[in-house]
């Protein structure tokens, strides 16, 4: 038999595959082992989610009411820490790094241990990590920054079916880019500013930047055109400016999201076809690049820059008067709220549902010279 297998490698591989299949089938479904630990304590004895402050830099949306006491008065805090898998799109991303730091602080205060999985922006890797986390039975909950959008829905459903609590952070999991509401049934919280809504915020700032200008020529720089979040944001902006016929988009570019270089190149080329535009709108990285070019060309005073992200350069630029304004970005708040939602879910508290971290910020998260002092940047850009 051995001689036959050695002389027929294909048969050897088939035999190995067959053995693997039998072993895999015999393992069975072990989905209950991780879930039961998670849902013991009563909500009343758990740290409640923080209420929203009236003013200040770290404003958080109002937490949902805790509600009535639970019927089963189990010990408030399990002696064993809760285990939460944090499926990050990329551990090296500066935005998500800010989220992670805030997440860790909340977790540490609530007897939760986080295991981070770095998908390195690889959708296939994230799927593998998600499925491994479910199969391991080791986690009570998962916080997901989805790379593949709606393609993550089956894994989310599997996690919920396995008794895990799921919180979605920062990225849309679904087909609707206009809402922060969870789009997969059973998700405890969906913490993100919907791209279309952020686009409308950009549109409002564009309208303000174009005030008293007729016509007002606007340059729009995508991050990556064709990316659903980019297209949704642009749709939101278009919806707002449609009511202002004086405002026209005279040129477009693509800046990517990896630093100012894309914005530099796009702005250099755009100036050759549209040398006298009034407003430039784009993600913070692209606007940084635009600022460099406009400064070199001596045109910074003629153009009103509108950014998206609320990064350190954006807030500094607005405070210094070099930028007109920007839509704030709150990765720290996103991470904090996501973990607070997980705490609530794990301790029998109410689901947070859809949470837009910018909704309760001053002026709906629109940063201008008038209110820039109320904002503290939460990421480097």
């Amino acid at each position, binding site marked *: 038999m051995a001689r036959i297998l050695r002389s027929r490698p294909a048969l050897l591989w088939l035999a190995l595959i067959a053995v693997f299949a039998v072993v895999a089938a015999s393992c069975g479904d072990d989905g209950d082992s991780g879930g039961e630990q998670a849902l013991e304590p009563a909500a009343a004895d758990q740290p409640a989610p923080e209420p929203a402050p009236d003013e200040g830099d770290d404003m958080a949306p109002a937490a949902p009411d805790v509600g009535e006491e639970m019927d089963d008065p189990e010990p408030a805090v399990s002696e064993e820490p809760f285990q939460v898998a944090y499926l990050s799109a*990329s*551990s*090296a991303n*500066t935005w998500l*790094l800010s989220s992670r730091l805030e997440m860790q602080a909340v977790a540490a205060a609530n007897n939760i241990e986080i295991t981070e999985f770095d998908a*390195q*922006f690889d959708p296939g890797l994230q799927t593998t990590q998600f499925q491994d986390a479910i199969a391991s039975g080791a986690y009570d909950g998962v916080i997901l920054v989805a790379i593949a959008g709606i393609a993550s829905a089956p894994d989310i459903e599997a996690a919920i079916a396995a008794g895990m609590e799921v919180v979605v952070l920062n990225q849309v999991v679904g087909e609707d880019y206009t809402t922060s509401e969870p789009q997969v049934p059973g998700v405890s919280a969906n913490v993100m500013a919907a791209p279309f809504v952020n686009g409308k915020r950009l549109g409002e700032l564009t309208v303000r930047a174009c005030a008293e200008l007729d016509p007002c020529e606007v340059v729009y720089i*995508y991050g*990556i*055109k*064709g990316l659903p979040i980019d297209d949704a944001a642009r749709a939101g902006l278009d919806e707002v400016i449609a009511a202002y016929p004086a405002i026209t988009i005279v*040129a*477009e*570019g*693509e800046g990517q999201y*990896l*630093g*100012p*270089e894309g914005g*530099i*190149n*796009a702005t*250099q*080329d*755009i*100036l*050759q*076809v549209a040398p006298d535009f009034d407003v430039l709108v784009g993600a913070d990285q692209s606007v*940084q*690049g635009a600022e*460099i070019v406009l400064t*070199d060309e001596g045109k910074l005073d003629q153009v009103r820059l509108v950014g998206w992200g609320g990064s350190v350069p954006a807030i500094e630029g607005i405070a210094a008067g070099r930028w007109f304004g920007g839509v704030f970005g709150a990765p720290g708040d996103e991470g904090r709220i996501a973990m607070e939602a997980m705490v609530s879910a794990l301790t029998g508290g109410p689901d947070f549902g859809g949470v837009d971290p910018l909704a309760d910020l001053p002026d709906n998260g629109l940063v201008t010279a008038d209110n820039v002092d109320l904002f503290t940047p939460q990421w*480097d*850009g």
Partner: protein
Amino acid sequence: MMAQVLPAARRYGIAVVTVALFGLLAATTDGFLSQANFRNILDQQSALLIAASFATITMIAGGFDISAASVFVVAPLFALQVENATGSAGLALVVGVAVGLVVGVANGLVVTALKVNSFIATLATSFMVFGAGFLISDRSVLRASTDAYPAIARTRWWGITTGAWIAAGVVAVAWILLSRTRFGRHVYAVGGNAEAARLAGVHVARVKTVAFALAGAAAGLAGVVSSSRTLSALPSDDFSFVFGVIAAVVVGGTSIAGGEGAVWRTIAGAFFIALMINGFNLHQVDPIWQRVIQGAVILAAVSIDSWTQRRPT
């Protein structure tokens, strides 16, 4: 007449195509034929030209260097840490180039001493270098603390940025090195037939290692120039820079198999792609369609060049 034209077309196919594209854009595109636009193109291509000119040498020598992307990203992170700590842009520049040189030497030794395929070896070193970038920067954006660092690439001499002047100098060095020195002749020999070169007395391992080292140093310099241009550096896993470099080299007509090519071809290839993108942007072609058309045009250009080089005179 045709007997004279066709051989020239064969040899200089990519240059002919690039000049033709230039003419087409000049005739059809508002804003193309201006000093400002040409200065912009030179500025935009400066980092790529620096890296691609020495990547050409590596490829002619029979090597494939994927790590140019990681060096491009990470070298300026080291450079900016030095600049922030010492206030010296000059020292930062030296450190950035040195980082690339070290990586290049390591690549060369892995390929020659350990006999690892160059694609695999440089892919592996890429991951290590990218990781080092996240560590050295603590996963943060680094920015220049002095005015001298941005001045490396953003000072203007006769209207052209110093980044572009640096690129011109590097291209010239690479061109002379490859076409006018014994080392250059050895590069062609090693890439054409390493065994024959060895039998002829060429130190194959040394030639390859030097080629990788120079390519690494050039990628480090390209990274510093780029970060000077953008006033910052950001750790990432982004491989896109090396795709741009390889595209310029291959579109220019340098053979992936080794033994054939030239620096001037890479320059022509780089400018062909740059002119095409510039034309797209000036015509405001949808970025989505830019991707499709760019790929098709590159394929056509490479096919034409390949065909002209295969046909007998």
